């Protein structure tokens, strides 16, 4: 999608990446790194793991640029790649019983101690906010992997049911079912904070 006449669109850029153009790759990375990082982090919940996955995803983008069909939308192709990579990672972790990949409390401490200002006037509120964020993270982490992916794609990427169906390779009905069940589970887990 060209923003102005001079800027190349995503489909043109990926074509150049297929011809091993590193500048085109940097350009594409710059456009989508925020989206991809956000999506992966919200899905995985661990910053270190998320960054590793983001690296692997963009490497996959570079390697499989030649497989992109010009008729398709680049963003859908990218989301599909991201979703599959995250889901595969989740299955890999689930198959190895070596403990949780997310430590909500540790992550909350690491991610928010420097980015969130502590309110000196109302520490009780600050504590409640911290607890609430942690509860939300835990609730999302406890969702089955496909429900979690559907929630993240809809809530944070604003994809429609049809677009999510295209990304996750399922029917619109299946997406609706995933989101409905996720909604019910999240409501049960987070009743206290609503």
């Amino acid at each position: 999608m060209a923003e102005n006449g001079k800027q190349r669109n995503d489909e043109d850029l990926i074509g150049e990446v297929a011809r091993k153009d590193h500048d085109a790759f940097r350009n594409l990375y710059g456009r989508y790194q925020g989206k991809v990082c956000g999506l992966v982090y919200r899905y995985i919940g661990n910053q270190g793991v998320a960054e590793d996955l983001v690296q692997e995803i963009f490497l996959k983008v570079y390697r499989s640029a030649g497989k992109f069909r010009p008729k398709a939308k680049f963003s859908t192709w990218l989301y599909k790649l991201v979703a599959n990579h995250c889901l595969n990672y989740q299955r890999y972790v689930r198959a190895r019983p070596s403990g949780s990949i997310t430590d909500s409390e540790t992550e909350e401490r690491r991610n928010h101690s420097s980015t969130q200002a502590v309110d000196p006037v109302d520490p009780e509120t600050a504590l409640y906010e911290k607890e609430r964020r942690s509860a939300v993270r835990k609730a999302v982490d406890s969702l089955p992997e496909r429900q979690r992916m559907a929630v993240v794609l809809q809530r944070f990427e604003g994809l429609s049911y049809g677009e999510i169906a295209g990304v996750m390779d399922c029917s619109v009905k299946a997406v609706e079912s995933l989101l409905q069940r996720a909604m019910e589970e999240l409501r049960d887990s987070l009743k206290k904070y609503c």
Partner: protein
Amino acid sequence: MECRGVRKRLKAFMDSEMSPEEKERIQDHLISCLGCSRLVEEFSKTWNLLATLSVPERSADLVPKIIERIDAEESKGFFKKLMDCLIFQPAPLLAGLALLAGLFLGGEIGNSFYSSAIAPKVELKRITAGEEPFYIEAFADLAPNSLEDAYFQLSTESEGRGES
């Protein structure tokens, strides 16, 4: 519409992912059903709560690391291509040939083992007194004009004449 049917579609209703007619039917139901409308409110609050799932600041730009990995892969491109041509791509064909060779070799080894150890031996009739009997393998091809062949001819002839 009944509550059970409505509650199954509440998320789709909230996202406007349904036909206008169905949406209107659900809206009509919600006007008169306190339980279902309360559920919509809870869903909505829960959905808004997800906004607290913020993304931390990213560490250093990942592009240099990615480009480094790409360059590393491409630098061993020639060697990799050579390995691909010599080993990885013909691997299925090589595996098939190895299997065939194994079958052939196995057959040859088995055959020689059978010939030397398993095949039943036939004791030839004693031709002259005092001579030790010797054995030939049944069904083995006898060299023409060999001693074994001569004995074999004699014994079959004598059997044909009814002699012992």
